[in-house]
């Protein structure tokens, strides 16, 4: 695979190292002269100096044959531009963008830049995982397919406690795919009875989180951090 990585900060440099060690071909683009000189010795010809939002810089890096473009500069506009141009002008199917300011996430979505990865969001997910009473945990979001997988801890006063899975009428567009109980997970059968303390995994259409929470963790408040 040939990957172009834009931005040779800590993220870009380490991604380049990882991909190269796995045998992939990588070009690392950096627009700051000083930063480029610092990485040139290590990356040699795989590092190029230039502003990747300039079309000729991308072309010089071989954007026409790139399988993947990763934009991880510290500037969200630049990341959006690089990915948009890569996708729409050079028809590179796979782009990954870094979101520096989580408030800009919507802009990436609006302009079709997916996936867009934000460190703040990732850490928030981890906090959700680490803090048990958070109620709802997002495990996976397939944005293009408009599906997500969430995990919910069943609280003792949930209306579904003691009910068989077959008797729980969940909203259209949601399904229980797994139950975690006493450390092991299993795929529920129609006669599986939901118990307090279970963790249920559901696949659902985005936007159903609140409705689903009411079934399993009606008082699932975010823990005080």
């Amino acid at each position, binding site marked *: 695979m040939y990957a172009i990585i834009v931005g040779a900060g800590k993220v870009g440099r380490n991604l380049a190292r990882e991909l190269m060690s796995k045998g992939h071909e990588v070009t690392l683009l950096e627009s700051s002269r000083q930063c480029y000189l610092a990485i040139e010795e290590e990356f040699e010809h795989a590092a190029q100096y230039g502003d990747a939002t300039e079309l000729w810089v991308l072309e010089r890096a071989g954007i026409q044959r790139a399988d993947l473009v990763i934009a991880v500069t510290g500037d969200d506009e630049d990341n959006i531009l690089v990915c948009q141009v890569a996708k*729409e002008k050079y028809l590179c199917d796979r782009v990954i963008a870094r979101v520096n300011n989580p408030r800009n996430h919507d802009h990436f979505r*609006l302009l079709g830049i997916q996936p867009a990865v934000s460190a703040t969001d990732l850490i928030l997910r981890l906090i959700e995982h680490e803090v048990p009473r958070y109620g709802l945990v997002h495990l996976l979001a397939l944005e293009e397919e408009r599906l997500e997988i969430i995990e919910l801890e069943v609280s003792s006063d949930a209306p579904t406690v003691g009910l068989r899975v077959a008797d729980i009428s969940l909203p259209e567009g949601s399904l229980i795919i797994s139950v975690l109980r006493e450390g092991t997970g299993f795929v529920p059968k129609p006669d599986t009875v939901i118990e307090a303390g279970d963790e249920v995994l559901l696949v659902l259409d985005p936007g159903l989180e609140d409705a689903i929470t009411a079934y399993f963790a009606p008082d699932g408040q975010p823990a005080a951090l």
Partner: protein
Amino acid sequence: MFVLIVGAGRVGAAVAKSALAAGHEVSVLDEDPLSHERLDAGQDKSWEDSGGQFTVGTALEMDALIQAGIERADVFIASTAGDNTNLVIAQIAQKRFDVEKTIVRVMDPARASWYGEQGLHTISPTKHAIEMFERALELEPQRV
């Protein structure tokens, strides 16, 4: 017409003044409060007294754009110092807020022509400068 101008540098401020003088409703958004002075310079009355609106804020912040009136803008002009900022906010104005007329300043001629082909109204001062130099020297224009 309601005109929203983001970026009150030399170009943005001058266009803002002309638009206001022509009787349009004009709102200017800039992250630097000092750029307000550029709007006042050479005028008898202050920008606000002449009927202009000024908001301090960053172009990419939705709140700032809304405060500056993007929701009812008929014309959106992106004239900050950053090409990429201009291209991104112009597309936001077009796609999220359905602004009827969106004009973007893009210094880089290559980016200006490609985004122009994609349906954005781009103006590239660099391209005009190149053409004027070429004309002054009676040169054959080369493809960018």
